[in-house]
């Protein structure tokens, strides 16, 4: 492979990372807003949030990407920059999975903690902010770590739309060299390294957050079997 082709691959890495960061931020925002809304005491708020989750979790990420690229522009007259279209499609879809993580972790907090908060006259929002979220967030890190890996893999889908990410650069190099094994091996290795680094960062974060409360780090067999429905949000590099 020539240095020109390597440059192409590096550009692809950069696009993939940009897309990953933007869509991860968007997915995190959606996760928390929708996940917290699903524990709201008004049934209509819970219903709408639940509806959002079912719809966006039910759809395929790739179909969603097609929809945002082809249906949104003529229907609403916006032409989104590809990066934002990809961010929107991935953020909305993976945010729906994330909201399930947030809801699950919030409902796993001992109900006695809520009663403790009521006895001290906290408002519902103060209970959420001071008691429930601080206890639930460390528990969310391992599943969010898995979801982040899924999101990284999901970013490859935008290459089908012609966006110049890592997977797309692989296709270009294949066409240039008329040879596939080498370039696709490199591309897969690069994705693997990024996934490995992300897992390390998330594990460090988990240790830091759980350190103060003295909780064990890592997942158990029970958690594996009772995982919420996922997009294949499975394990990660260990």
């Amino acid at each position, binding site marked *: 492979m020539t240095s020109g082709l390597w440059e192409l691959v590096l550009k692809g890495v950069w696009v993939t990372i940009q897309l990953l960061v933007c869509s991860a931020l968007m997915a995190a925002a959606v996760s928390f807003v929708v996940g917290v809304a699903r524990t709201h005491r008004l049934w209509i708020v819970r219903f709408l949030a639940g509806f959002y989750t079912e719809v966006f979790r039910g759809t395929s990420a790739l179909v969603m990407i097609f929809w945002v690229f082809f249906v949104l522009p003529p229907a609403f007259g916006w032409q989104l920059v590809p990066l934002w279209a990809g961010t929107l499609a991935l953020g909305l879809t993976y945010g729906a999975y994330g909201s399930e993580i947030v809801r699950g972790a919030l409902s796993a907090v001992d109900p006695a903690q809520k009663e*403790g908060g009521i*006895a001290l006259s906290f408002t519902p929002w103060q209970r959420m902010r*001071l*008691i429930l979220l601080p*206890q639930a967030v460390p528990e969310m890190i391992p599943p969010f770590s898995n979801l982040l890996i899924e999101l990284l893999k999901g970013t490859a889908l935008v290459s089908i739309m012609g966006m110049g990410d890592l997977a797309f650069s692989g296709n270009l190099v294949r066409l240039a060299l008329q040879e596939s094994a080498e370039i696709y091996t490199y591309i897969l290795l690069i994705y693997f390294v990024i996934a490995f680094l992300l897992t390390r960062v998330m594990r460090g974060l988990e240790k830091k957050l759980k350190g*103060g409360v003295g909780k064990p780090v890592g997942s158990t067999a029970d958690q594996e079997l009772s995982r919420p429905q996922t997009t294949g949000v499975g394990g990660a590099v260990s």
Partner: protein
Amino acid sequence: MSTDTLPNPEKNPAKGDGELIRLEQVTKRFGQNTVLDHLDFSVEAGKHVTLIGPSGSGKTTILRLLMTLLKPDEGTITVDGQKLFPASDKEVREVRKKIGMVFQQFNLFPNMTVLRNITEAPVTVLGMSKDEAVERAKGLLEMVGLADKCDAHPAQLSGGQQQRVAIARALAMRPQVLLLDEVTSALDPELVAGVLDVLRDIARSTDITMLCVTHEMNFARDISDQVLMFDSGRIIEAGAPEKIFSEPEKDRTREFLSAVL
């Protein structure tokens, strides 16, 4: 012990001469099971009232109704002149500020240090300055004998220590009423005395109103002004502790006492 950390005497104007809590015809059911059956009783400010009786007789339910953790199916509950059901969220929170509760399972917040467990509510709910809250929290921790545990997390403490922190946390809100829900039931036997000593101190040296569900009969005898004997959701006998414990009128009370004493 420094008295300025304890509930402020001036805050209880009704001291000894007014009704603080009143339950009228209160009924609570869980499914088919009637836990409280048209219950009437009232507590005067400054009094220490102990609820005794077999488990499942509805004692804990009364405390949880007063703390608004449960809603009654029928009847009215009044605290310091304010009806609890129905009431606006704001009115309910105002009433909650007057009531502190200590739970059987402590319910300390594991994500906060001991000190912050005690200071958080005074700062966010009462709007107290942080310095003042910390100072008062330290006084309260000294009172319960845990001055050196400020920076510990609840998970690092024994059950007895956690419960003493929970008592300090409830008192930090300067409540007029303290609800004690079987506070020693979850503790190992050797840790019970330390917690009860702290509560005896509080009962003696303050004029806080106490409503106490307990199986510790000696403790009940020491601190109570009045003892209420419950059975099947009704009060079957009420009176001064000397009378209830020494010469109960009802057979049911005698049976219960001979079983637990």
